[in-house]
Protein backbone atom coordinates (compact mmCIF):
# COMPACT_ATOMS: atom_id res chain seq x y z
CA UNK A 1 0.00 0.00 0.00
CA UNK A 2 2.78 2.42 0.80
CA UNK A 3 5.23 1.46 -1.91
CA UNK A 4 3.26 -0.25 -4.70
CA UNK A 5 -0.37 0.82 -4.34
CA UNK A 6 -0.93 0.26 -8.06
CA UNK A 7 -0.35 -3.48 -7.49
CA UNK A 8 -3.34 -3.68 -5.13
CA UNK A 9 -5.92 -4.39 -7.81
CA UNK A 10 -9.01 -6.53 -8.21
CA UNK A 11 -6.93 -9.70 -8.47
CA UNK A 12 -5.12 -8.82 -5.26
CA UNK A 13 -8.40 -8.28 -3.43
CA UNK A 14 -9.67 -11.59 -4.81
CA UNK A 15 -6.62 -13.28 -3.29
CA UNK A 16 -7.30 -11.58 0.02
CA UNK A 17 -10.89 -12.83 -0.05
CA UNK A 18 -9.57 -16.38 -0.08
CA UNK A 19 -8.19 -15.75 3.41
CA UNK A 20 -10.21 -12.91 4.94
CA UNK A 21 -13.79 -11.67 5.10
CA UNK A 22 -14.59 -8.27 3.60
CA UNK A 23 -14.95 -6.95 7.14
CA UNK A 24 -11.40 -8.09 7.93
CA UNK A 25 -10.05 -6.68 4.65
CA UNK A 26 -11.49 -3.25 5.41
CA UNK A 27 -10.10 -3.50 8.93
CA UNK A 28 -6.64 -4.36 7.59
CA UNK A 29 -6.72 -1.72 4.86
CA UNK A 30 -7.81 1.07 7.16
CA UNK A 31 -5.27 0.00 9.79
CA UNK A 32 -2.43 -0.04 7.26
CA UNK A 33 -3.46 3.29 5.74
CA UNK A 34 -3.73 4.90 9.16
CA UNK A 35 -0.25 3.67 10.06
CA UNK A 36 1.28 4.75 6.74
CA UNK A 37 -0.01 8.22 7.43
CA UNK A 38 0.86 8.54 11.08
CA UNK A 39 4.23 6.85 11.29
CA UNK A 40 5.69 9.10 8.58
CA UNK A 41 4.40 12.10 10.53
CA UNK A 42 5.77 10.74 13.82
CA UNK A 43 9.16 10.19 12.20
CA UNK A 44 9.46 13.92 11.55
CA UNK A 45 8.83 14.68 15.23
CA UNK A 46 12.13 13.10 16.25
CA UNK A 47 10.55 10.60 18.59
CA UNK A 48 12.86 8.14 20.29
CA UNK A 49 11.88 4.60 21.31
CA UNK A 50 10.08 4.43 24.63
CA UNK A 51 12.03 1.29 25.53
CA UNK A 52 15.69 0.37 25.86
CA UNK A 53 16.99 -2.58 23.82
CA UNK A 54 16.26 -4.69 26.92
CA UNK A 55 12.63 -3.58 26.89
CA UNK A 56 12.88 -1.20 29.89
CA UNK A 57 10.72 1.95 29.75
CA UNK A 58 13.03 4.99 29.44
CA UNK A 59 12.67 8.76 29.06
CA UNK A 60 13.20 10.48 25.72
CA UNK A 61 16.50 11.91 27.03
CA UNK A 62 17.74 8.50 28.14
CA UNK A 63 16.56 6.94 24.90
CA UNK A 64 18.45 9.57 22.90
CA UNK A 65 21.63 8.68 24.82
CA UNK A 66 21.07 4.97 24.12
CA UNK A 67 20.17 5.16 20.44
CA UNK A 68 22.22 8.18 19.31
CA UNK A 69 21.38 9.83 16.00
CA UNK A 70 19.59 6.87 14.45
CA UNK A 71 16.63 5.97 16.65
CA UNK A 72 14.81 2.75 15.91
CA UNK A 73 12.51 0.33 17.60
CA UNK A 74 13.83 -1.85 20.39
CA UNK A 75 12.30 -4.59 18.26
CA UNK A 76 14.63 -3.65 15.39
CA UNK A 77 16.09 -7.14 15.02
CA UNK A 78 12.68 -8.76 14.98
CA UNK A 79 11.42 -6.20 12.47
CA UNK A 80 14.45 -6.71 10.22
CA UNK A 81 13.96 -10.48 10.37
CA UNK A 82 10.35 -10.07 9.33
CA UNK A 83 11.22 -7.68 6.51
CA UNK A 84 13.84 -10.10 5.19
CA UNK A 85 10.96 -12.29 4.11
CA UNK A 86 9.22 -10.20 1.45
CA UNK A 87 5.44 -10.32 1.06
CA UNK A 88 5.87 -12.05 -2.30
CA UNK A 89 8.05 -14.76 -0.82
CA UNK A 90 5.64 -15.22 2.04
CA UNK A 91 2.76 -15.67 -0.42
CA UNK A 92 4.51 -18.35 -2.43
Amino acid at each position, binding site marked *: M*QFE*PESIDAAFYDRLRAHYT*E*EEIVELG*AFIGFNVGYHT*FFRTLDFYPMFSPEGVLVSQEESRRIYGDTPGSHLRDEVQDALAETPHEAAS
Partner: protein
Amino acid sequence: MTLIDPVDRSQAEEQGLRSRLDSFTGLGDESATFIRILARAPGYAEALWDAMAEALFEGNVDHALKEIIRIQLANKAEDPYFSSLRSKKALESGLTEERIAAGQGDFLNDTQFTDAEKWALDYAYRMYRTPETVDAAFYDEGKQLWSEAQIMEIGGLVAIHYGLQTFMRTLQP
Protein backbone atom coordinates in the same frame (compact mmCIF):
# COMPACT_ATOMS: atom_id res chain seq x y z
CA MET B 1 -17.77 0.95 -8.37
CA THR B 2 -15.21 0.03 -5.74
CA LEU B 3 -13.36 -3.24 -5.13
CA ILE B 4 -15.06 -3.56 -1.75
CA ASP B 5 -18.76 -2.85 -2.07
CA PRO B 6 -20.12 -0.20 0.30
CA VAL B 7 -22.88 -1.39 2.59
CA ASP B 8 -26.38 -0.15 1.74
CA ARG B 9 -27.31 3.18 3.25
CA SER B 10 -30.08 1.52 5.24
CA GLN B 11 -27.58 -0.95 6.68
CA ALA B 12 -25.24 1.91 7.61
CA GLU B 13 -28.09 3.73 9.27
CA GLU B 14 -28.97 0.58 11.21
CA GLN B 15 -25.40 0.68 12.50
CA GLY B 16 -26.09 4.15 13.89
CA LEU B 17 -24.09 5.95 11.21
CA ARG B 18 -26.72 8.44 10.05
CA SER B 19 -24.94 11.48 11.51
CA ARG B 20 -21.64 10.40 9.91
CA LEU B 21 -23.33 9.83 6.55
CA ASP B 22 -24.81 13.32 6.77
CA SER B 23 -21.52 14.82 7.93
CA PHE B 24 -19.63 13.22 5.06
CA THR B 25 -21.85 14.96 2.52
CA GLY B 26 -19.99 18.10 3.58
CA LEU B 27 -17.30 16.86 1.19
CA GLY B 28 -19.77 16.72 -1.68
CA ASP B 29 -20.36 12.97 -1.91
CA GLU B 30 -24.06 12.68 -1.15
CA SER B 31 -23.83 8.88 -1.21
CA ALA B 32 -21.04 8.89 1.43
CA THR B 33 -19.33 5.97 -0.30
CA PHE B 34 -16.24 6.07 1.90
CA ILE B 35 -18.27 5.88 5.12
CA ARG B 36 -20.29 2.97 3.75
CA ILE B 37 -17.09 1.07 2.86
CA LEU B 38 -15.65 1.65 6.34
CA ALA B 39 -18.97 0.44 7.73
CA ARG B 40 -17.95 -3.07 6.66
CA ALA B 41 -15.72 -3.08 9.76
CA PRO B 42 -17.90 -2.26 12.78
CA GLY B 43 -16.62 0.75 14.70
CA TYR B 44 -14.22 1.91 12.00
CA ALA B 45 -16.50 4.42 10.28
CA GLU B 46 -17.21 6.18 13.57
CA ALA B 47 -13.62 6.31 14.79
CA LEU B 48 -11.89 7.16 11.54
CA TRP B 49 -14.40 9.61 10.06
CA ASP B 50 -14.75 11.43 13.39
CA ALA B 51 -10.94 11.90 13.44
CA MET B 52 -10.83 12.93 9.78
CA ALA B 53 -13.71 15.37 10.21
CA GLU B 54 -12.24 16.86 13.39
CA ALA B 55 -8.91 17.40 11.62
CA LEU B 56 -10.49 18.96 8.55
CA PHE B 57 -13.43 20.97 9.82
CA GLU B 58 -12.48 21.95 13.39
CA GLY B 59 -9.47 23.57 15.05
CA ASN B 60 -7.59 26.84 14.73
CA VAL B 61 -6.18 26.60 11.22
CA ASP B 62 -8.19 28.04 8.34
CA HIS B 63 -10.45 25.32 6.94
CA ALA B 64 -9.97 26.44 3.33
CA LEU B 65 -6.20 26.05 3.68
CA LYS B 66 -6.69 22.58 5.17
CA GLU B 67 -8.96 21.70 2.24
CA ILE B 68 -6.21 22.70 -0.23
CA ILE B 69 -3.79 20.51 1.73
CA ARG B 70 -6.25 17.58 1.77
CA ILE B 71 -6.61 17.75 -2.03
CA GLN B 72 -2.85 18.10 -2.50
CA LEU B 73 -2.42 14.88 -0.48
CA ALA B 74 -5.19 13.06 -2.37
CA ASN B 75 -3.38 13.90 -5.60
CA LYS B 76 -0.10 12.63 -4.12
CA ALA B 77 -1.87 9.41 -3.11
CA GLU B 78 -3.31 9.22 -6.67
CA ASP B 79 -6.72 8.74 -5.16
CA PRO B 80 -9.34 9.82 -7.73
CA TYR B 81 -12.17 9.64 -5.18
CA PHE B 82 -10.89 12.08 -2.57
CA SER B 83 -9.16 14.20 -5.24
CA SER B 84 -12.53 14.92 -6.80
CA LEU B 85 -14.34 15.83 -3.57
CA ARG B 86 -14.67 19.43 -2.44
CA SER B 87 -15.65 20.77 0.95
CA LYS B 88 -18.89 22.70 0.68
CA LYS B 89 -17.85 24.83 3.65
CA ALA B 90 -14.58 25.78 1.96
CA LEU B 91 -16.27 26.60 -1.34
CA GLU B 92 -18.85 28.71 0.50
CA SER B 93 -16.01 30.62 2.16
CA GLY B 94 -14.66 31.53 -1.27
CA LEU B 95 -12.14 28.79 -2.05
CA THR B 96 -11.77 28.50 -5.82
CA GLU B 97 -10.46 25.80 -8.14
CA GLU B 98 -7.74 28.25 -9.17
CA ARG B 99 -6.51 28.56 -5.60
CA ILE B 100 -6.74 24.79 -5.10
CA ALA B 101 -4.64 24.30 -8.24
CA ALA B 102 -2.14 26.90 -7.03
CA GLY B 103 -1.72 24.86 -3.85
CA GLN B 104 -0.59 21.91 -5.93
CA GLY B 105 1.92 23.89 -7.99
CA ASP B 106 4.70 26.38 -7.39
CA PHE B 107 3.06 27.63 -4.21
CA LEU B 108 6.34 28.73 -2.61
CA ASN B 109 6.68 31.44 -5.26
CA ASP B 110 2.99 32.32 -5.42
CA THR B 111 2.19 35.70 -3.91
CA GLN B 112 -1.43 34.76 -3.20
CA PHE B 113 -0.23 32.65 -0.27
CA THR B 114 1.12 34.09 2.98
CA ASP B 115 4.39 32.82 4.42
CA ALA B 116 2.43 30.76 6.97
CA GLU B 117 0.30 29.20 4.23
CA LYS B 118 3.39 28.44 2.16
CA TRP B 119 5.00 26.69 5.12
CA ALA B 120 1.87 24.58 5.72
CA LEU B 121 1.58 23.61 2.05
CA ASP B 122 5.28 22.79 1.97
CA TYR B 123 4.93 20.72 5.17
CA ALA B 124 2.27 18.56 3.53
CA TYR B 125 4.19 18.42 0.25
CA ARG B 126 7.38 17.20 1.92
CA MET B 127 5.79 14.75 4.36
CA TYR B 128 5.44 11.80 1.96
CA ARG B 129 8.04 12.82 -0.60
CA THR B 130 11.05 13.89 1.45
CA PRO B 131 10.18 13.32 5.13
CA GLU B 132 13.87 13.52 6.00
CA THR B 133 13.74 17.25 5.19
CA VAL B 134 11.00 17.81 7.77
CA ASP B 135 13.60 18.26 10.47
CA ALA B 136 14.21 20.48 13.50
CA ALA B 137 15.18 23.44 11.31
CA PHE B 138 11.98 23.07 9.28
CA TYR B 139 9.86 22.91 12.44
CA ASP B 140 11.72 25.94 13.86
CA GLU B 141 10.75 27.84 10.73
CA GLY B 142 7.15 26.71 11.21
CA LYS B 143 7.13 27.85 14.83
CA GLN B 144 7.82 31.40 13.65
CA LEU B 145 4.56 31.28 11.71
CA TRP B 146 2.26 28.94 13.63
CA SER B 147 1.72 27.91 17.24
CA GLU B 148 2.79 24.39 18.20
CA ALA B 149 -0.89 23.49 18.56
CA GLN B 150 -1.53 24.62 15.01
CA ILE B 151 1.47 22.67 13.71
CA MET B 152 0.14 19.52 15.38
CA GLU B 153 -3.28 20.27 13.92
CA ILE B 154 -1.80 20.44 10.42
CA GLY B 155 0.39 17.37 11.01
CA GLY B 156 -2.56 15.35 12.27
CA LEU B 157 -4.65 16.41 9.28
CA VAL B 158 -1.87 15.42 6.90
CA ALA B 159 -1.32 12.03 8.53
CA ILE B 160 -4.88 10.79 8.79
CA HIS B 161 -6.13 12.08 5.46
CA TYR B 162 -3.10 10.88 3.49
CA GLY B 163 -3.18 7.48 5.19
CA LEU B 164 -6.83 6.79 4.47
CA GLN B 165 -6.66 8.26 0.97
CA THR B 166 -3.87 5.74 0.33
CA PHE B 167 -6.26 2.98 1.36
CA MET B 168 -9.13 4.39 -0.71
CA ARG B 169 -6.86 4.62 -3.75
CA THR B 170 -6.45 0.83 -3.70
CA LEU B 171 -10.21 0.28 -3.72
CA GLN B 172 -10.72 1.85 -7.14
CA PRO B 173 -10.06 -0.27 -10.23
